């Protein structure tokens, strides 16, 4: 087997994995700030998909403008969900589990009622392929991966250097101590939840032309995101990125040897192997 083929397979794997990292980072951000797992996270991804379908495929707005709008709109929906529901669940893991599962059903059923149960195809925004160094990648995949990487970098810069970003890191490490330094916990919590959902919405917008849009589309990326989070370590943002790279490379290489259904199982195999060696994941703290 040639090296080119291996690199090509890795490239294919990374492409989609970067988008799943976006979903995983959103879940992780929400987990670190509110100490809860949002099981309805995939439904915010689905919302991003439908926004893209209507704005881009139906109304024909520019793809990147649509993407920006999907991010904003789903982020706003996240803020509303936090103010109405999730702010009462801070630190209440079990309650949040039940409530977010309920929200998942409500959002999926509402999507079925409003948009129908059938898949809605979103046309590719970009056509053609790029060839370089003996590798081939479709322009669409390239745009999807690069956009995901830009969003990941933006999140990093925001958390590292901005004032609200610092406040979020402080709340993640010790919420009471952050409040005593003058951080408005309610504000950070709404903002953090909103940004987490915005990332899911962006991911939905990026993958809408790759897969079709449907009420249940959120299941696949969320499963991938959970695999990534468990590999990387619960609550660790760098862990989510590394976990995504690992999952992407395993799936990419796996696709050389097996069909796509079997490839989907590989992720779980990696989870088992990682947990055997490091029960808290690669970057999991004490």
């Amino acid at each position, binding site marked *: 087997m040639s090296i080119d083929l291996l690199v090509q397979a890795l490239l294919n794997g990374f492409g989609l994995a970067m988008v799943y990292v976006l979903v995983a980072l959103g879940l992780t951000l929400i987990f670190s700030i509110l100490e809860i797992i949002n099981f309805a996270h995939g439904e915010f991804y689905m919302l991003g998909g439908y926004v893209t379908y209507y704005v881009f495929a139906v109304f024909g707005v520019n793809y990147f403008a649509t993407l920006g709008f999907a991010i904003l709109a789903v982020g706003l929906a996240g803020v509303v969900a936090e103010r109405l529901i999730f702010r009462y669940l801070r630190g209440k893991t079990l309650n949040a589990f039940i409530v977010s599962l309920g929200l998942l059903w409500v959002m999926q059923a509402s999507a079925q009622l409003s948009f129908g149960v059938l898949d809605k195809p979103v046309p590719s925004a970009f056509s053609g392929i790029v060839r370089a160094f003996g590798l081939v990648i479709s322009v669409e995949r390239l745009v999807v991966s690069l956009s995901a990487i830009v969003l990941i970098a933006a999140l990093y810069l925001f958390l590292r250097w901005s004032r609200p970003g610092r406040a979020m890191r*402080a709340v993640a*490490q*010790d919420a*009471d*101590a952050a409040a*005593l330094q*003058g951080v*408005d*916990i309610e504000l950070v919590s709404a903002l953090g939840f909103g940004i987490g959902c915005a990332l899911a919405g962006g991911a939905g917008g990026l993958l809408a032309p790759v897969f079709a849009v449907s009420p249940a589309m959120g299941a696949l990326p969320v499963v991938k995101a959970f695999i990534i989070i468990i590999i990387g370590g619960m609550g660790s943002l760098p862990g989510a990125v590394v976990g995504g790279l690992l999952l992407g490379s395993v799936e990419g290489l796996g696709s050389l040897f097996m069909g796509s259904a079997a490839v989907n199982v590989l992720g779980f195999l990696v989870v088992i192997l990682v947990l055997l060696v490091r029960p808290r994941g690669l970057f999991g703290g004490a």
Partner: protein
Amino acid sequence: MLELTDLSVHYGTVAAVDSVSVTVAEGEIVAIIGPNGAGKTSTLRALSGLVRPSGGRVMFRGTDISRWRPHRIVALGLSHAPEGRRLFPQMTVLENLRMGAYRRRDRDAVARTLGEVLERFPRLAERRHQPAGTLSGGEQQMLTIGRALMSGPAMLILDEPSFGLAPLLVREIRAIVQSINRERGVAVLLVEQNARMALAVAGRAYVMETGRIVLSGSAAMLRESPHVKAAYLGG
């Protein structure tokens, strides 16, 4: 400057703090001493807004802050260095200090305060780029106090600053508290299990047991009280 009137805190139906009244005047150092579980920390958490009081009133600088959330209370000049240090372990010493000035917008003034704090705590200046989680217990305590000073407070609340520290370090902390009070005129409310230390620094003190104030007066008077001697100063 600070006036707690009949303050109560309930967890469920259990009263952790039961009608406690405490005052701290401008420039004063006041201590609350008492055993573990007496409600000292709950009192402090109520007055800085971390828990809702179930009754009573908290006045600070003439404003009723009983129902305020913590971030607004800090902005009013009341800074709380909590029990157990509660630093941001993954942030560096410098980042922790900057978090202390989170509500201040005047960059020059923050830089001045930062300079003063680093001058007061040379050990922190040496370790400024180190993550707070890697500091020793004494250094962490100094960082907790330094962080609380970064907001430029009119009053400082210190919860168990001597906890878990060697006697030499306890003396150092004591000297630091005194100099902050003297040089900057910052009022201090000090909560301690180490009654000997607390009564050496404070001008006045309250003795708290099972949620109530059982005794109060000047530190000199309390040092001579038979109850305090027997229960807290080792006879």
